């Protein structure tokens, strides 16, 4: 277990996806409004997040948080390692890509790093944005929306919030044409969360799942794919009728699911 842990961590830190995302960023051109700037607002937000976690006196002993990138996320991007910045940027670029392709109007989001494009959707009266209730929503409201740069630039921010329990219960089922989640939101002992989020899609809608490649470690499994802890969740996407599933084996991994019926 220890060796596997070290191996996994090494994969996280050295996989080429950092470099590929740097290249992706340098060779992409989004509109001027979609700059995904890693600006002082985002830097302040990330710093506030890590300060908040410290203030909460969260147990961060090695045995408690291990090498899980999800639990090191905010402290890792706080150091502004170039690869991390590009990784965040690239993930958001993919979100824009699929939204631009399908012209979504009704979003269900589990929030990540706040950025300009996301705020634009919340300030567009033709779009409905629903955010999932979790600790990142708390941080978004306390440490991002409250910044002067944000409140003065985005003056008509509107969104609603939905609890995970309601998603599991089927509230608003079949109404969202764009669902954006991360793999951490779906890994469970059973497929209840996967089923529930997929059922939120309207026919023709697209679900964008980030990090389905476990930050690259998924792709070092080779013939032993069945041994990876994330395989079961990834395979559960394939078990439902009426959905097309596209696993894009790039850097941290992205899965796109389209509801066809």
């Amino acid at each position, binding site marked *: *277990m220890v060796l*596997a842990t070290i191996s996994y961590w090494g994969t996280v830190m050295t996989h080429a996806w950092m470099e590929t995302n740097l290249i992706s960023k340098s060779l992409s051109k989004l509109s001027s409004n979609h700059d995904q700037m890693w600006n002082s607002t985002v830097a302040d937000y990330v710093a506030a997040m890590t300060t908040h*976690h410290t*203030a*909460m*006196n*969260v*147990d961060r002993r090695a*045995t*408690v*948080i*291990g090498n*899980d990138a*999800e*639990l090191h996320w905010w402290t890792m991007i706080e150091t502004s390692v170039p690869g991390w910045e590009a990784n965040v940027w690239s993930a958001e670029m993919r979100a824009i890509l699929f939204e631009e392709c399908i012209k979504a109007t009704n979003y269900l989001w589990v929030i990540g790093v706040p950025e300009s494009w996301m705020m634009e959707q*919340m300030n567009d009266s033709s779009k409905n944005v*629903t*955010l999932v*209730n*979790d*600790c990142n*929503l*708390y941080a978004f*409201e306390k440490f991002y*929306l*409250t910044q002067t740069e944000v409140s003065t630039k985005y003056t008509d*921010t*509107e*969104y*609603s*919030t*939905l*609890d*995970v*329990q*309601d998603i599991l219960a089927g*509230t608003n089922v079949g109404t969202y044409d764009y669902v954006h989640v991360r793999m*951490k939101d779906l*890994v*469970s*002992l059973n497929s209840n969360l996967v089923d529930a989020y997929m059922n939120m899609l309207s026919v023709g809608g697209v679900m964008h799942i980030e990090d389905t490649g476990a930050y690259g470690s998924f792709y070092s499994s080779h013939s*032993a794919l*069945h*041994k*990876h*802890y994330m*395989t*079961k969740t990834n395979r559960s996407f394939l078990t439902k009728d009426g959905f097309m599933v596209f696993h894009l084996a790039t850097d941290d991994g992205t899965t796109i699911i389209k509801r066809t019926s």
Partner: protein
Amino acid sequence: MASRSTPGNSYSASSDLSQIEYELAKVLFSVGLDWANIASLSIDDILDKINECNTINPMNITNGAAYASTLASEDYLKTQNTVLTIMVRRLWYWRQLATGVL
């Protein structure tokens, strides 16, 4: 339905905590721990129990002389150990954050 629409003040720590503890309870029961004892359980206790229930034996079948392989059952235990450990660590972390802002 717990839909809220007040930007800036819509996070519900109690709802968040409820969902986190629902998931955490499932893991606890799966390894033989009782949610009723959560107040006296540490994450170290839970991680120890996960290891106890999903013990990974040393590779015990050799495949030729070059390298060893594992039984499918051992692969399953290792994977189960990993996913339970990751889930518990995340849920425990998020539980602390939700509890902290209640």
